């Protein structure tokens, strides 16, 4: 059963169809959780006793930073799968994820510096976490550049997979940077297992936003994957038939 599912998902045509059906669900889920998260985050959650109202940018900043790492791990895992089992669809996932991941990384950096200005009095400091996140952005950009430089897209996907796997050493460094080095960036207040040092009224909107961002990633990555599939399979019969039907 499960084997059959994976086998089917490995076929570009089947994947294309399933992804097309899944995108609306992801989109609806994303919009609902986004509205909920923004409402609770901006209007319901109390102001921070130390940072006042400006801490609310956290509801974008923190989920974006989580996503930047999460997407990289997704990319590296699909890269490993595509190198080992040569599954076409994971190759597509690697490169479709890279652009979304780069955007989230940029968003995390931009919101972080906006948050840093009122709190730390500076847009940017060269502390461990900020530098590591910037490196992550460069890793994403390198992956995108390498992919666009290689003509044959299947070769490009495998080259990019190797690069993604080599770069994965950076992820634990980002994650633990605030614990290993005592720097300006505040330590994590959510991921402490058991007892988060944040009140539920502030934490709940953050988690809703995190779910929302994940759903957004799901929707966008599937859209990009579909576009990539059509481009790769443009000479196969089902794509041609589909295009002909669209044209009618």
């Amino acid at each position, binding site marked *: 059963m499960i084997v059959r599912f994976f086998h089917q998902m490995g076929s570009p045509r089947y994947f294309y169809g399933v992804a097309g059906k899944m995108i609306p669900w992801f989109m609806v889920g994303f919009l609902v959780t986004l509205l909920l998260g923004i409402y609770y985050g901006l209007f319901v959650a109390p102001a921070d006793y130390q940072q006042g109202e400006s801490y609310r940018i956290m509801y974008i900043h923190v989920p974006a930073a989580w996503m930047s790492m999460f997407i990289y791990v997704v990319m590296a895992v699909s890269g490993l799968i595509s*190198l080992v089992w040569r599954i076409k669809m994971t190759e597509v996932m690697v490169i479709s994820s890279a652009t979304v991941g780069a955007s989230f990384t940029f968003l995390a950096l931009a919101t972080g510096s906006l948050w840093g200005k009122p709190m730390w009095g500076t847009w940017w400091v060269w502390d461990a976490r900020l*530098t590591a996140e910037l*490196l992550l952005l*460069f*890793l994403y*950009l*390198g992956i995108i*550049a*390498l992919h666009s*430089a*290689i003509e044959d897209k299947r*070769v490009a996907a*495998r*080259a990019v997979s*190797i*690069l993604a*796997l*080599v*770069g994965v*050493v*950076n992820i634990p*460094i980002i994650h633990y940077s605030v614990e290993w080095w005592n720097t300006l960036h505040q330590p994590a207040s959510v991921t402490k297992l058991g007892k988060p040092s944040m009140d539920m009224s502030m934490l709940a909107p953050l988690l809703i936003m995190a779910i929302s961002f994940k759903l957004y990633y799901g929707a966008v990555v599937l859209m990009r994957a579909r576009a990539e599939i059509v481009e790769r399979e443009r000479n196969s019969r089902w794509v041609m038939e589909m295009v002909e039907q669209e044209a009618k």
Partner: protein
Amino acid sequence: MSTLSLTSAFTLLLKRDLVLAYRRRAEMVNPMLFFVLVTAMFPLGIGNDPKLIEAVGPGVVWVAALLAALLSLDSMFRSDFDDGSLEQFMLSAHPVSILVLAKVLAHWLVTGLPLFVVAPLLAVLLNVPSSAIPTLMLTLVLGTPVLSLIGSVGVALTVGLRRGGVILSLLVLPLYVPVLIFATDAVKTAIVGIPTTAQLSILSAMLVGSLVLAPMATAASLRISLS
């Protein structure tokens, strides 16, 4: 057909690359000259205040070493790729990762070691206290092989591209950063007079890690580039 043992294949390849490099001695000098020139640009750019130069000295030496390593990377597989011998290595009965290791070692001996020779001179020029120079040398010995090893993965990925140079730096530089951070931190710590065992241990760990893992990634990348 006589079979060649892995050790002799390794040494033969190493010897071949060293002989090839020795026949083009001028090219060996270039990274070294580049290293010296880049270092000389910094005092011109930031002003000749001795205190300022002393503060940035270790960083400047390391950044220059990093750029010199980066610039010389492209030659690692280039000529072998052009004349087809790289494909013969792929076809050989020996594990490609070991052959890659021989090539990386030869490349490091040719381009990395000369940096090591001029580094103390540059350190003196940049007012790095003489007590910290042994640490600087130690970080270079531990760090530059890591640069060559990580770089080999990037070169292997871009060797088939016509304009791989810029992309190569984009791929490799982010991966060089940890080496840069710990190496310069070690030198700065040594200037203050605090033991640098921690940073040197981490650098050694990076060396060992990349020594084991990088050749495998390079071999896989070469296979992709040649496919």
